[in-house]
C-alpha cells in the first residue's frame, strides 16, 4: 500500500514528490551548533524554527536549542526589524550566549529584512553586551538546499570574525563539510596524528553527541570558540572538505585574510581518504604516521577478504552532493555498480563528477541533481538494485521493492549510531564497508534455499 510510485516515467515540471533535500536554515542551524556557546537564531516565523529543531532532534536524539523572531502577520507586512531587535535583547538577557548566529528564512528574505543594518543598530544602541558577538547568514530556502545553508553560515562566521593580525601561525584551518559529530572528532584525530595544529570550523563533536551528565547544559562543552574563529585569519592554509559545504568559507578566508585554500572531497572511502591524508602530509612535510597506515591496511584487508560479496552488486545512492560523490567513488572502488546516483541538491558539477567517476565502470548510470525520491523509486523499478545507500526516507522504497538499505546522510530518523561512529577516514570506511557487507550477507542468508544456506561466509 505504501508503494504509490508508477514504474513508467512521468513528466514533472512543477513539483517534488518525496524530497531528497531539506531547507537552508536547518543547515545554518547545524553549522551554528558547532560553535561554542552559540545560540542559533531563526529570523522568521516560529514554525520554521520548531521544525528545524525537531528534525535535528530526531536525527541526533539530542536537545537542540535555537531561538526565533516569532514573526506575526504584522511582521510579514512591516518587516521583522522590531522582532529581531527584541529577540537580541531577550536572548542576551535570558540565554546568555557568547555569540548569536542569525539566519534568515524564506519569509524574512522575501520581505527583505536587512540583517546587518539591524545588527548595527543594536550595536549602536548598546543592546549587545561587552564581548559578545552577533553574526548572520542569508539562507533563503528557495535558493539552494540545506547544505547551502550550512555553507552560508560557516562563511558568515568567517566573514564576521576571522581577521589576520599580520602574523602567520603554524595552524591550518579545516572546514569539515556536512558530516556527523563523530566524523568531526575523527578528523581532529587524523590531524592530531600528524601533530599539526589546526582549527576546525564548525565542530559539533561534544555538542551533538554530548554525554548524559544528569544535567541539561544549554551550551555543551564542544564547538569552535569565537577566539579560534578569529585566529583562522592567521592560519597558513585552509583545507575545505566537500565543495558544496565548505568551499565558500575557504574562498572567503582567502579573500579576507589571504589564507590559501584547497578543496578536497569528503574523506569517505579509501581513495578520498588517501587524498586527504596526502594533503596533510604535504602540509607537514612528514611521513604518514604508522597508526594511519595500519588503519588503511585494515580497511584494504577487509575489502579484499569480502570482495566476492561486493563484486558487481548494483547499488542506488542518494543524499548530499559531497557525500554522494565520495560514496560513489568508494562503492566503485569496492567493485560495486552504482547504477542510480542522485542528489536533492543542485549543481551541474554533481552530474559531471559522478559521470567521471563512473565513466569506465557504469557508463550508463542514471545520474541526477535536483532529484527526489519519487524519481529514485522509478529508476529502481526500471532497474532493480541489490542495495540502497541513503537517508531514512529510502525506507519506503526499501520496503516496497524489498531491497536492503544502508542508512547514510541527513537525516536518519529511525536508527542510532551515525552520530557516534565515524564514516570518514579509514576506520570510518571500515564501518561503512562492514555495514554494506552485512546488509548483502544478511539478504543472502534470508533468501538462500536450505541447501545453499551457509554457516561460514
Amino acid at each position, binding site marked *: 500500500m505504501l508503494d504509490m510510485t508508477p514504474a513508467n516515467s512521468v513528466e514533472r515540471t512543477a513539483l517534488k514528490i518525496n524530497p531528497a533535500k531539506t531547507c537552508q536554515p536547518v543547515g545554518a542551524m547545524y553549522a551554528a551548533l558547532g560553535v561554542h556557546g552559540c545560540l542559533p537564531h531563526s529570523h522568521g516565523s516560529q514554525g520554521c524554527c*520548531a521544525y528545524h529543531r525537531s528534525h535535528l532532534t530526531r536525527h541526533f536524539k539530542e536537545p537542540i536549542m535555537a*531561538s526565533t523572531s516569532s514573526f506575526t502577520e504584522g511582521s510579514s507586512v512591516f518587516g521583522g526589524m522590531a522582532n529581531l531587535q527584541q529577540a537580541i535583547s531577550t536572548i542576551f538577557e535570558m540565554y546568555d550566549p557568547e555569540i548569536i548566529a542569525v539566519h534568515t528564512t524564506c519569509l524574512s528574505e*522575501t520581505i527583505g529584512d536587512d540583517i546587518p543594518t539591524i545588527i548595527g543598530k543594536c550595536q549602536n544602541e548598546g543592546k549587545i553586551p561587552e564581548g559578545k558577538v552577533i553574526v548572520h547568514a542569508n539562507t533563503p530556502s528557495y535558493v539552494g538546499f540545506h547544505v547551502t545553508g550550512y555553507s552560508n553560515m560557516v562563511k558568515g562566521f568567517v566573514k564576521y570574525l576571522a581577521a589576520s593580525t599580520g602574523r602567520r601561525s603554524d595552524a591550518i584551518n579545516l572546514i569539515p563539510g556536512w558530516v556527523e559529530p563523530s566524523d568531526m572528532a575523527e578528523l581532529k584525530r587524523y590531524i592530531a596524528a600528524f601533530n599539526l595544529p589546526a582549527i576546525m570550523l564548525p565542530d559539533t563533536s561534544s555538542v551533538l553527541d554530548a554525554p548524559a551528565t544528569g544535567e541539561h547544559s544549554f551550551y555543551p562543552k564542544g564547538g569552535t570558540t569565537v577566539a579560534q574563529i578569529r585566529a583562522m585569519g592567521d592560519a597558513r592554509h585552509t583545507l575545505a572538505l566537500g565543495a558544496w559545504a565548505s568551499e565558500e568559507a575557504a574562498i572567503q578566508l582567502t579573500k579576507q585574510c589571504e589564507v590559501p585554500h584547497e578543496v578536497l572531497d569528503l574523506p569517505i572511502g579509501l581513495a578520498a581518504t588517501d587524498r586527504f591524508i596526502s594533503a596533510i602530509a604535504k602540509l607537514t612535510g612528514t611521513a604518514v604516521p604508522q597508526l594511519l597506515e595500519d588503519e588503511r591496511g585494515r580497511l584494504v584487508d577487509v575489502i579484499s577478504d569480502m570482495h566476492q560479496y561486493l563484486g558487481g552488486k548494483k547499488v542506488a545512492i542518494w543524499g548530499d552532493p559531497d557525500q554522494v560523490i565520495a560514496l560513489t567513488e568508494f562503492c566503485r572502488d569496492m567493485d560495486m555498480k552504482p547504477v542510480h546516483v542522485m542528489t536533492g541538491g543542485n549543481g551541474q558539477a554533481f552530474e559531471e563528477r559522478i559521470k567521471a567517476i563512473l565513466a569506465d565502470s557504469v557508463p550508463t548510470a542514471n545520474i541526477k541533481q535536483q532529484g527526489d525520491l519519487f524519481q529514485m523509486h522509478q529508476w529502481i523499478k526500471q532497474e532493480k538494485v541489490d542495495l540502497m545507500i541513503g537517508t531514512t526516507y529510502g525506507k519506503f522504497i526499501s520496503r516496497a521493492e524489498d531491497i536492503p538499505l544502508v542508512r547514510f546522510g541527513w537525516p536518519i530518523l529511525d536508527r542510532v549510531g551515525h552520530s557516534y561512529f565515524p564514516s570518514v577516514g579509514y576506520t570510518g570506511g571500515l564501518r561503512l564497508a562492514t555495514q554494506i557487507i552485512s546488509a548483502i550477507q544478511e539478504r543472502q542468508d534470508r533468501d538462500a534455499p536450505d541447501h545453499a544456506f551457509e554457516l561460514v561466509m
Partner: protein
Amino acid sequence: MLDARKSQVITAGDARAIVCDRPSVAGSVTQRACTFCGSRVVLYPIGDALHLVHGPVGCAAYTWDIRGALSSGMQLHRNSFNTDIRENEVIFGGEKKLARALRELIPIHKPKAAFVYATCLTGVIGDDVEAVCRGATAEFGIPVIPVQSEGFRGTKKHGYSAACAALAQLIDSGDTTGIGPFSVNILGDFNIAGEIWTIKSYLQRMGLEVVASMTGDGRVDDIRRAHGAKLNIVQCAGSMTSLAKMMQEKYGIPYVQVSFFGLEDCASALYEVAKHFADLAMLERTRALVREETAAVLPEMARLRKDLEGKVAALYVGGAFKAFSLVKALRQLGMRVAMAGTQTGAQQDYEHLKELCDADTILADDSNPLEMAAWLAARDVDLFIGGVKERPVAYKLGIGFCDHNHERKIGLAGFVGMAAFAREVHATVTSPIWKLVPRRQRPGCSNTEGTP
C-alpha cells in the same frame, strides 16, 4: 526568568490568573510551532486525499510522515507533495506552478480530494491559492480545497481553525441517505497508533454507526456525508470545536466534548454519548462495556501503581485538554504532578488546571527548555511527558519520558489505552538506566525547592 515571562508562570495555588494566549516573546526558544503545522496535523490523516504543500521544500520535508496517524487502506497521505517554490516563483508568483503541479498529480494518483496548503512564503508573495483551487476543482471534478495555513498567522491553534474551515468545504457534498438515527461523527482524533479503531469499536458495541472520523483514518467520501450524523463527538477539543460549532449552527447537529483518555474520562465520555441518544438499551450496553473493559485492565493497573505511587511527573503538551486528562490519569496511577504546561492553553483552561492540580503544581504557558529543565531538576521529577523536542532534555537529566504527541507508538485512548499508558509510564520510570545517571548517583539529589 525574563520579566515578560513571569506572568505566564504560576502555581496552581496562586490567586493571580496566568497570562496566556499571546505571541511568544521574540528571541525565546519557544517550543511552539506555526499555523501550517496545526493545519497539517489536523488534515494529514485523511488517507485518500492528496496533500500538496504550496511553498518551499522545508515546510513539506519536515511534515513528511512525521505523525503516526494510521490508515487502514489508502496511504496516499504518507507521501510528500510539494511545489518546491524557487526564486523564480518568488519573483513572478507561484500560481502557475501550483496549477501545473495539480495537473501533474491528480491524474496519476486519482485522489478523492486535494488539500493545498499555503505557507508563509506563498502568502507573502501573494499567490491566489483559492483561485487556482477553484480552477482545478472545475478541471478535475474533485474538490480541491485551499488551506489558509500561512505560518505567520499564528500558532498551531490558528492552523486548527484553518483546517476546520477546509473540512467545512467538504462536508455537505455527499449523499446522506441510509444514515440511521444512532449515528455519530468523531472529531479531533487522529488515529495515532490506531486509537480511533479502539474508540470506534466501543461506539459500535454501543450500537452506534460512525459516519465520519475526522480525521483519523478519515476518508473523503465519509466526510462529505458527515452532516447526516446525529451527534458530533469532539475529542481533543482544542483542535476541532470550531468545526463542531459550525455543524451545530448549519445542520443542527449537537456535539459533546469528551476525552477518551483515562478510565474515568473514557467512561464518562461513553455515558455522555449514550445519554444523548436516550436509549435504554444503549445505556445498558454501555454500562456493560465500561464494566467489562474496566475490569479487564484494573488488576494490571493496580500492580503497576504499586511501583508508581508517590512518583512525581511533569508535563508539557500542545493543548490544554490533553493536560486535563493527563493530570487525572497520572493521579489514577498514584503520581503527583509537579508541573503542567501547554503551548497554547487559554485562560479558562488554566483555571480548570488550577482546580485539578495540587497547590504547588507549576503551571506554565509557552515554556522553554531552560526553565523547564530547571523545574524538572528542582522538583526531582521522575517522569516527563511531552513531545519530540522535550524528550532529549528529559533523558539528559536522567528522567523517564513518554511522548504524548505525534511520535508516540502506543495507543493511549480507551480503557486498553490507559493500561498501555500505565505500562509505558511504568517502563520508563522504573528503567534501571536512571540509577546510572550521574545526577541520581549524587547523594541528596532530592529537593523540593524551586517554585517559580
